């Protein structure tokens, strides 16, 4: 029997597979198609203080081995999510979830963190300082070490739950940002968010995405994500949730060897809604193939 379990801070997961924020809603759209309790956890749709419609459409552009999205944090607001969605969520998911929150000011991050801090079902708070699709916030907090640390400290001051900072790859040196988050008291790092990209329609000669640019994700970015996780693992002591193009059990093992304690699966859910289930089912035989008894033992073993 192989051991798939891993531990993120004080949260024990049956396996390291976590659907990534923004590709799994609040779990509702997937719960009827497989028992989502087989997942390690899931990261809920990025939620802000106020309700947001998001960006104009088209919000999606296909790419080779991936896609660009410019959803722009569409969500019903943290109060609604905590009051209406969380009680529903309890009925179909009996494990700790990862609450992904975002903001446009330090106060908004704090407001959301305080809200989810009171929720028993929240195992980890994932702070999105890396959304490329919103102005005046989101990614701007994550592109400078100083502001990344400020957000970390502010959130840590209002919660006792583990805080994982979700980083953007759209920076000169992601290691500096990760270190600043660690110095600010972060319990872990989630990485990477999407890469800023664009596509142009040859017929109209205009950008496909209404907002012109958006976040590029999918298998095409896996080597970039892997490299960044590898670099950050060498620089910080806190655990890393690795993500960026993970689509197979092999990718999971590779990302863990680079230094991830767990992984998030994003775009692959959009192509194949059953992909997380398939990865979890494929992991044991894939582990046997590479003589891995316990996934915990391979974390960072590429170093």
């Amino acid at each position, binding site marked *: 029997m192989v051991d798939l379990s891993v531990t993120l801070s004080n949260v024990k997961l049956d396996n390291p597979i976590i659907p990534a924020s*923004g*590709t*799994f*809603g609040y779990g509702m*759209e*997937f719960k*009827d*198609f497989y028992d989502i309790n087989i997942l390690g956890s899931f990261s809920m*749709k990025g939620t802000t203080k106020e309700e947001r*419609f*998001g960006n104009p*459409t*088209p*919000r*999606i552009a*296909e*790419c*080779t*081995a*991936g*896609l660009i*999205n410019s*959803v722009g944090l*569409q969500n019903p607001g943290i109060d609604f999510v905590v009051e209406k969605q969380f009680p529903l969520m309890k009925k179909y998911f009996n494990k700790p979830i990862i609450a992904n929150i975002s903001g446009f000011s330090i106060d908004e991050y704090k407001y959301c963190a305080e809200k989810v801090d009171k929720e028993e079902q929240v195992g980890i708070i994932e702070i999105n300082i890396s959304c490329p699709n919103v102005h005046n916030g989101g990614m701007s907090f994550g592109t400078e070490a100083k502001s990344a640390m400020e957000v970390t400290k502010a959130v840590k001051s209002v919660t006792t739950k583990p805080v994982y900072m979700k980083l953007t790859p759209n920076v000169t040196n992601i290691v500096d940002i990760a270190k600043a988050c660690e110095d600010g008291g972060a319990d872990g790092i989630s990485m990477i968010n999407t890469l800023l990209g664009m596509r142009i329609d040859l017929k109209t000669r205009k950008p496909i995405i209404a907002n012109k640019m958006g976040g590029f994700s*999918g*298998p095409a970015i896996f080597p970039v994500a892997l490299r960044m996780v590898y670099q950050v693992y060498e620089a910080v002591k806190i655990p890393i949730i690795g993500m960026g193009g993970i689509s197979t059990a092999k990718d999971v093992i590779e990302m863990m060897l680079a230094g991830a304690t767990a992984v998030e699966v994003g*775009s692959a*859910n*959009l*192509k*194949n*809604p*059953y992909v997380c289930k398939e990865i979890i089912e494929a992991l044991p035989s894939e582990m046997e193939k590479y003589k891995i008894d316990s996934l915990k033992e391979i974390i960072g073993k590429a170093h």
Partner: protein
Amino acid sequence: MYKKNKYTVRSNKQIANLVYEMVLEGDTSYITKPGQFINIEIDKFYLRRPISICTYDESTITIIYKVVGEGTEVLSNLKEGTILDILTGLGNGFDTRRSKERPLLIGGGVGTPPMYGLCKALIKEGKKPVVVLGFNSKSDVFYEKEFKDLGVEVYISTVDGSYGTKGFVTDIIRTLNGYDFYYTCGPMNMLKAVYELIETSGELSLEERMGCGIGACMGCTINTKNGPRRVCYNGPVFKKEELVW
């Protein structure tokens, strides 16, 4: 409820300018209503291609699609016997119970296919649908005979006047009366014109660029009177009263 399954291409033939009809064989048990769509994985393309269902029976699904880009180009070249990975049972579909004796069905271009399955379902309920189809030109027209074979009134318009009434579907609708409800699918500007012209209640099937087709990515959100709605998950069919233009 959706389901992912393998389907075999049984036929794939051109029926109008750039328009193809494909018959797929496989499990159809997750399809519950006319107006739903399927999401087809195409080799070498990352995202699936959402295509509305024209009609279906116990073991086959018929789709009609237009070649508009590289993905549908590949689809149009698929040979009989090809196996495809498809999600079925997507979208809410039309509610046939909302219409009475004489519903009006309006299809524009490749918005026509779901009207065919809907027409069959309405006839089964003992209703007498009136069908109005709009195309750009004679070479774009398809399924006129198929609709007529169902024994319903069919009116056709073409923008250039090369077939049927010259003009738009609205030019025909203005001459019709006695209908009690309408169902429509087609380009957004046609839907808007229909929405503004017809006073009775109706249901409109919208189109938006989708990511996943299952309600997960929020890529195809529109604003409605009831707040943001996902075209793939809350739609593609919306009540007239919900829409904001």
